[in-house]
């Protein structure tokens, strides 16, 4: 899918994350997280997995994570992508 417009999902609550996806020429992933030092590798892996699944090749994906578990990351990113897909 293509990111056609800005899409947002999530909250800034503890154990949640805020995802913002926007159109861009290439794929840019920006991770800000309270647990970045210990978990950036796993957060990035999960984001990439979801982007892969949806066939997203370009767009700016920014997340502000407050220690969310993988299933929350997945759900928030999916929702943000759906909202950005122009559907």
């Amino acid at each position: 899918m293509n990111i056609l417009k800005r899409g947002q999902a999530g909250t800034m609550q503890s154990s949640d994350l805020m995802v913002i996806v926007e159109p861009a020429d290439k794929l840019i992933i920006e991770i800000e997280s309270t647990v970045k030092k210990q978990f950036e590798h796993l957060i990035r892996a999960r984001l990439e997995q979801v982007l892969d699944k949806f066939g997203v090749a370009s767009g700016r994906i920014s997340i502000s994570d407050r220690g969310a578990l993988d299933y929350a990351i997945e759900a928030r990113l999916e929702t943000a992508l759906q909202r950005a897909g122009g559907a």
Partner: protein
Amino acid sequence: MVLNSLGRQIPETFSGKKLIPYSDPWSLQPHAERSTRAIRRLTHNGSKLVGGLKDAIIAVGLKDGMTISTHHSLRNGDQLLNDLVKEIDALGIRDIKIASSSIHIVHAELIPYIRKGVITGFECGVNGLIGELVSKGELDCPIVVRSHGGRARALITGEIPVDVAFLAAPYCDEYGNFNGFYGPSACGSLGYAQVDAQHAHKVVAVTDNLVPFPAVPVGIPQSVVDFVAQVSRLGDPKKIVSSTTRITTDPIGLQIAKYAAMVIESSGYVKDGFSFQTGTGGISLAVAENVRNMMRQGKIKGSFGCGGITGNFVDMLEEGLFEALFDVQCFDLRAVESIGRNQKHQEMTAGMYANPFNCGSVVNRLDCAILSATEIDVNFNVNVNTESMGYLLHNTGGHCDVAAGAKVSIVVAPSIRGRLPIVRDEVTTITTPGETVGVIVTERGVAVNDNLPELKAELIRRRAPVKDIRQLRDEIYAVTGVPRPIEFVDKIVGLVEYRDGSIIDVIRQVCP
């Protein structure tokens, strides 16, 4: 560098002092006489009032390179230390070491004075921004983290020679008798200040509430006080309470509290003469509530409640569930109000509470104690000092003292905070050695140290969710993923001293 018995690299010296690597909780013996200070003879019988803080600093002869202390009984409501350092700076004095009983978030105001060279070291642990900046290498100021008992020990042995103690004195007369029970800045117990009053080379009572002689009951006596200084305000006692001092309503917290109560019940100590300590966290208070119901139902008359004392403990005393409370510091205003009224609400010094180097501290008489944890490793070692970014954010408090003293020390914590697994292969910093930790209680299960086999058997018999600590770790990792260790540079910015003065761990600067 040498490895201590827990596998931590300890330098041979730090800030010019030779270090003893930690080996075990029990065997290190004191090698010192009690510290001495000059005997003073004051012949006048008039007032010891010198004026304000500036006058007191001049009167005691504070000089570059000296060590000062304050107490933290007003906790995050303390104003004295900030005001004091401003005056010290204004007088052009530099290179001062702070050896207060603790540093709170409010003391972030000291940061400009650290940058300026007014303060050049902390002989005490810190809470909040100062530790964070030191951890990042943005502030150059060595920190030695000590437990409450360890600090008392270090003052008594003279390892920290405090040149001047400036002690907030909420109810004070002009000849220097004071207590913490009454007045606009009443903070209750002066348990920490008691040690400074006996061991600092000079003692200044600082008050915002001068009362006619004599200020009774006498907490700290005129015979150890050199000067009395007056300020408009010592601080705000409403800020003694931290926001967490309410019983949790969170289902995970309540589940943990239920299991912790099972552990206490299974320990066999809940009978006449039971003694107990708990903290102020929401889970701890929920455990205390369960213990209270257990004691009521069993018509049990406990021996004592201990620690930082809260209103919940006061209720238990007044209900007759405990014979006495031993109070090193009041954690809320109901406790402050009680200590001035209840004879059996006993103020105790930090030395009596937790110093390992004496003829027996109160923690040794504890049956069960509830403790918290930021991280726990598979050998039961606990970290309460550093957080997920590797920053030094919390002081030890009485954690390692109580763990060593209590027959059953119970660490309660959710298995996951944010994404952070609380039980893990290795902790970032060892505050408390696993050998002294009895039981880990999480909502996912209970892990019992091998040194308590009877308790473990009893918990299994009662169908508590007993798990091997490695199994617990694996279950948690299955949810969170395996964390990457935090990266540090070689530079050591702080030490974590065990209660006996040996070095259990170091604080390193984090990688940018």
